Structure formats: structure tokens, C-alpha cells
């Protein structure tokens, strides 16, 4: 018994310390965001919320934030619209060249961002789309294609296609089957795919750095510049806000999963 306890103690201790290594820097940023003065001093000399006020009131930060939301929203919408039919094609049909098409769709996941940054820098330069939002939206929409494709494919794989037949047997044609059965059932997973595309764009730094320019600067680009050039404590604010959103979402999901588990357990009891 003792040996078993010991044997599980070592990995547990290791895992916890490494978990601390992962978590600590993020917590540090939270502390920094309330710090005063130059951003790279830790611990900060004093604590204020000045940096938060600066972030929310300066156009230099608000405009890139807004840009990022617009670009991420637009590119997610485009990716979803372009990629979803393809996921249906893969789920429903066998066709010659399926493997090749799949490889093509996955391409954006295989090419290093820096290579694409150079490629788009040149390409959009020729099309006069450099330093425009349109350019960034297009680039980000391309990057999200494989991600949305993978998520949608997984969704469609787990979709119960006999429901479609059942609906037809009830007398619904193609349109009404899609409207009343497929769409309501697939809507949540469409949203998830869209969310992933949104985050992909919102988080993307390298390509945005080189092609968005000052005119269409995204939030990551603004952060990058601010980290590299000045010692701007607002970076810590933005980082904290981003971290807070992620943490909130992660905790809500974990909590709901727990709740869902106990709910389905009571349901099982009721059935009997």
C-alpha cells in the first residue's frame, strides 16, 4: 500500500510543479497589469488601475481591439460559409481525388505562418490589399479553413443520418428536413466551429504583423509593437483581459460538464 502511494506521489508532485510552471507566468501578468511604471519591473513599485483606464480610453488600443473583432468575425463567417459545404461533401460522398482535396484543404495548417506572411506580403502588395482589413480577413479566413473543416467533419461524423431518413419517412422533403432536423441539431456545432475560426483569427500575430499595417492594425500586432518598442504596462492589461476571458470560459465549461453529468445521472434514476 505504501509503495503504491509513493509511486503515485512522485508523478503527482512532478505534474503539479510543471502545472505551476505553466500557470505562474499567466498569474504574474495579472499582477503586472495593476502595477505602476515601467512594465518590466517585478514586483511593481505600486498598484493602480491606471493602465486599465489607459487601455479603455486610448484610441491607440481601442481601434486595434475593434479591428480584431471585426476581422475575426468576418473571417470566421467566411470560413464557415466556404468550408461547411465541403465538410458535407466529405461526409456524404465518395469521389475520386478525395485524399488530394483533403490534403489541399489541410494545407494552411502545414505551411509555417512566417512563410505565409511573406507570401501574403508579396501577393497583397500586388493586389494593393496590403495594410487593409480585407487582406487580413482573407488571410485569416484561409488559415481557419482546415480547423473549421476538421471540426465540422467530426460533427457530421457523429451526426445520426438515419434522422434524415426518419424525417423523410414522416413526409418532409429535403428542404424541410434540413430546416427542421439538420439545422437545429447542427447549429451548436456550427457555432463551435465558428468560434474556433474566430479565435484563430483573433490570436493570429505573425501574418497580421506584416500585412495589417497601421491602418488595419490588429490587437496582437499592437501588443507585439508595444512589447518590442516601449515598456508599456497596457500590454499586461490586455493580456490579463484575454486570460480572464479564457479562464472564465474554461471554468464555465468544466462546471457545466460536471453539472451535466449529475443531471444525466438523476435522469437515469427517474427512468427506472
Amino acid at each position, binding site marked *: 500500500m505504501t509503495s503504491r502511494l509513493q509511486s503515485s506521489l512522485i508523478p503527482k508532485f512532478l505534474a503539479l510543479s510543471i502545472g505551476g510552471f505553466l500557470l505562474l507566468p499567466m498569474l504574474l501578468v495579472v499582477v503586472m497589469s495593476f502595477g505602476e511604471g515601467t512594465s518590466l519591473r517585478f514586483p511593481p513599485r505600486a498598484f493602480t488601475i491606471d493602465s486599465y483606464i489607459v487601455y479603455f480610453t486610448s484610441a491607440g488600443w481601442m481601434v486595434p481591439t475593434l479591428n480584431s473583432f471585426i476581422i475575426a468575425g468576418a473571417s470566421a463567417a467566411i470560413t464557415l460559409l466556404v468550408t461547411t459545404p465541403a465538410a458535407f461533401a466529405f461526409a456524404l460522398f465518395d469521389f475520386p481525388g478525395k485524399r488530394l482535396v483533403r490534403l489541399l484543404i489541410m494545407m494552411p495548417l502545414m505551411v509555417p505562418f512566417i512563410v505565409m506572411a511573406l507570401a501574403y506580403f508579396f501577393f497583397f502588395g500586388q493586389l494593393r490589399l496590403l495594410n487593409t482589413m480585407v487582406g487580413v480577413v482573407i488571410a485569416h479566413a484561409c488559415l481557419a479553413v482546415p480547423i473549421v473543416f476538421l471540426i465540422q467533419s467530426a460533427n457530421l461524423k457523429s451526426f445520426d443520418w438515419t*434522422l434524415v*431518413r426518419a424525417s*423523410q419517412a414522416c413526409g418532409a422533403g429535403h428542404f424541410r428536413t434540413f430546416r427542421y432536423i439538420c439545422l437545429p441539431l447542427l447549429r451548436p456545432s456550427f457555432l463551435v466551429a465558428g468560434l474556433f475560426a474566430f479565435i484563430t483569427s483573433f490570436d493570429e500575430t505573425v501574418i497580421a504583423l506584416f500585412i495589417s499595417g497601421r491602418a488595419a492594425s490588429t490587437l496582437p500586432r499592437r501588443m507585439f509593437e508595444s512589447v518590442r518598442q516601449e515598456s508599456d504596462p497596457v500590454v499586461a492589461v490586455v493580456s490579463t483581459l484575454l486570460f480572464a476571458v479564457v479562464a472564465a470560459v474554461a471554468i464555465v465549461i468544466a462546471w457545466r460538464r460536471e453539472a451535466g453529468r449529475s443531471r444525466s445521472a438523476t435522469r437515469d434514476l427517474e427512468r427506472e
Partner: protein
Amino acid sequence: MTQAQPFLRLDAVSKRYGGRAELAVEGVSADIREGEFVSLLGPSGSGKTTTLMMIAGFELPSEGRIMLSGSDIVGIPAHRRNFGMVFQNYALFPHMTAFENVAYPLRLRKQPSSRIDEKVKRYLDMVGLARFASRRPAELSGGQQQRVALARALVFEPTVVLMDEPLGALDKNLREQMQIEIKELQKKLGITLIYVTHDQSEAMTMSDRIAVFNNGRIEQIAAPLEIYRRPETRFVGEFVGESNMIEGRVGDATERRVETEIGEIEYGPDSAFGAGMPVFAMIRPELITLAEKLPPRNGTQLTVTRTIHFGDRVSVEGTTVGGTMLRFRASGREAAVCATGRQVNVAWRSDDVHILARGQ
């Protein structure tokens, strides 16, 4: 059943899937009367489900016609055929309550909501689920889900109801209970029902007629007892119930005798075969009994090789001197006589011997 004209007719229907050489369904023909309960019985891959899917309109036949009251329905898409369908995994819409599931076909038919309300309630009541109307499928047990699926397939009074192994996912007791309920509903409502199953006892207990499928063809279509007593092929005889198939050749046709390795076997009056034809003599195990003495014909001596106890009865396997294996039933009391290694005499009645053709 009322004697009606052929209602649903399959006329030499075949199905070939793209790129494959063999036919999934090959020249299936059948006439199904109005109000009849027909089971499509066969092992998996025998074409029974594909046939059902072609009737439903989910698959296009490669050849042949499917006629409903005299007109071809092959070109009519599934949703306009007005056929009810019950699927093996229930296929209830998970985002709708039991009530909404059953109401769905009526709403699609744009019936007034008061009427929908009344009908859905009546059908849910009929399947014993009135209390569960507001539950979602995930909150119902398997049996309850299948009842909702049943109500949904019946509520719009379809021309034909198709069921694809509807009870396959239920446990044994519930399955037997549902068999009775489905059969009673079908009789009460006068439904024409085509029922796919691989379970021969299910087909036997529920059907007016059984179509036995094998390798994409119907081997025999007949009433359950007919199928059991007088199978036309070896496959049917062995798939439906247990059987002893003894190879032989017709000896004296007028005396109705077959010459086999275990001697001459007399057969019943219903079979007509010419002398010298290769045949099987089929005897069901439950029609073979232990005998005190070896009878001159219609009997043999066996060395018992194995006994399996079922509690109320015993299944005994034995071999003749020539090596033919026979299986028969003994009562629990006779079990002692049939211990492994013992020699026993068995006998049967000539009327219980059925002769069927044997391919060369």
C-alpha cells in the same frame, strides 16, 4: 385477413451498388396483401434491409418495379410515399419531445393544431406513453423510445408501415412484450406491415407470411408454419428452426422412400419427387423420439456424443454407425438414458419426414 387484390407488389427487383460485381438484391418478387403482416427474414447481408429501403424509397432499385395498387412508385421520393417507418435505433429527433416527435408528420401535413393535439394524444395513449409526452428522447428508456417511434410511424395513417429490426436493441423480455403489442396494434388498425428481422422466432410469432432471404434472393415466401414444416430449400430448413438434413436419393417414388446412409426413410404424402433424384430428408429434432426397439424403418441406432440440458428438455446429439449426425429432443426424465457414449434407438413418423431437393 381479408382476401384483397395484390396491394404492394415487388416485381423482379434487383439492386446493385456502384462498383460492385455481385447484386445486393437479385430478382425479388412478392405480392403483399392489404392488412398483411409480412416479415423479411434472413441473416445479415442477405438483402432484406436493402429490399425494405427500396420499398421505403431510400434506395433506387437497379432493376424491376415496385407497384402500389397497380402503379409504379419507384420514381416517387420517400417523403411522398406516405409510408411509415420504424428504425432499429429508433431515430427519434433528439431536439423534440415525445409529443413533438409524434406531431411532426402531422405538422408536415399541415393538419389543424387541434386535430394534431387530439391525434398525438390518442396515439401516445395507444402505445402507453401518455404520461411521457413532454419528455425528450434522452429522458426515455429504450422501450419507451421505440414506442414513440411506433406512434410516430402510425399517427399519420400511412399506406404501409415498414419496420427495420425495430426491436433489435431491446433486451429479451421487453422484446417479447413489444412483439405482442406490435402484432395487436397491427391487427387492430388493419395495417399493412413489412417487418425486417434476423430473428426467426420473432418472424414466426408475428407474421402472416415470412419471406426468407438468402444471398439477395427470396428462398421461400409462405405462412410461418408452412415455412417450418415444408421448407423448400436446405437454407430455409436450417435457418428457421433446427433440423436434421439427411442426404439421400429417392428410391421407390410410389412407395415414397428415400435411400440414405442410415437406411430407407419413408416420407409424407406431400412431396412429389421422381426416382433417383438427389434429395434431403429433413426431420425436425423434436419429432424424433426415443424407441425401445429399433424399428425396421424410420428409425436408427445412435451413439450419443453430446447432451445439452435446457431444464425442461434435453437436446441430444448422436452419430449412426455410418457417421451421420442426428439431433433430437428428449424429456428431462429421459436424460439419464441419453448419457454420452450410450447407445440409443430413435424413431420418427414417416409423415414428419419432409423431402427437399438437393443440388448436385
